[in-house]
């Protein structure tokens, strides 16, 4: 598909930026926030400069999403690690210990499943 990508990057030069949408619109397009069939989508398929900027926004968005999912995975791991045997023991010693302790174990298992299912 590199050849097709090169086609869009090279075949429609528009150095004067005639009829180009704003950068904000291109960002919205990359984020999927524009209504279906928006004219900007037709435009970027016929303007190499806008296609390039659209892809740049897409890459940035992907990067942000990757970072967010990495942060979320780290937070999950922290939550799972926070459940330790001393907490469980103190929960079992409390009034509703039996029920709370089992709930903690279930939460712990769920967190670990979530963590290692990726």
């Amino acid at each position, binding site marked *: 598909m590199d*050849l*097709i990508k*090169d086609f869009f990057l090279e075949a429609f030069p528009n150095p004067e930026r005639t009829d180009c949408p704003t*950068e904000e619109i291109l960002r919205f397009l990359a984020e999927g926030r524009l209504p*279906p069939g928006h004219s900007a989508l*037709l435009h970027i*398929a016929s303007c190499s*400069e806008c296609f390039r900027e659209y892809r*740049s926004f897409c*890459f940035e968005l992907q990067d942000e999403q990757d970072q967010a999912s990495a942060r979320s995975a780290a937070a999950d791991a922290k939550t799972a690690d926070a459940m330790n045997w001393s907490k469980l023991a103190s929960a079992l010693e409390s009034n509703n210990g039996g029920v709370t302790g089992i709930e903690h174990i279930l939460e712990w298992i769920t967190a670990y499943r979530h963590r290692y299912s990726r």
Partner: protein
Amino acid sequence: MKRQQLHLVDENNDPVSPAIQSAVEAAHYWAVREFPRVDPVLLANWAERLAKNMANKDLQGSVRRYAHTAMHETVRRWLKTKRASELAVGLDRELESIAGMQEGLHGKVDRAILFEQLKSRLRGRDRSILMLLQSDATPAEVAMTLGMKYEAATKAIQRVRARVAQCLQAAKPESQTTTDESKEVAKEWT
């Protein structure tokens, strides 16, 4: 993908303005992702040089757009001089084999012919569909993005693929014979 740290300073070794920094970093990141076969050290050097140049200029309009255009121009110039001798940058092996493209002058001519063919045969919505297919969109995603019915989108995708396959065949030099492998791949596009 981890972002590379850039040393963006002006001629006096002072840090460039935040606007230039952000624009150059964005253009550099785009180039790294878009041209993975170009040496990242070269891309970083070009980005740092670009920041220095931009700091000297009184830029009108969007600095981000300027940075992307300048970065792309530099990469394009470099690819033009290096493509024939060192790298097959940007040419997908699969499509290359269908079109029977070659490196060097013939390769450039084939490429230009192919791009002209694609331009004349694909118009408006068809180009948008090809663009979406290029980014691995499914028929359902194409339908949703373009506000079409699913059935209409699948038909339109078939039409685009058929036209691309015709263009690839047409761009192939007459002297070349079609191998079994390229026939197989061409079938996939029809």
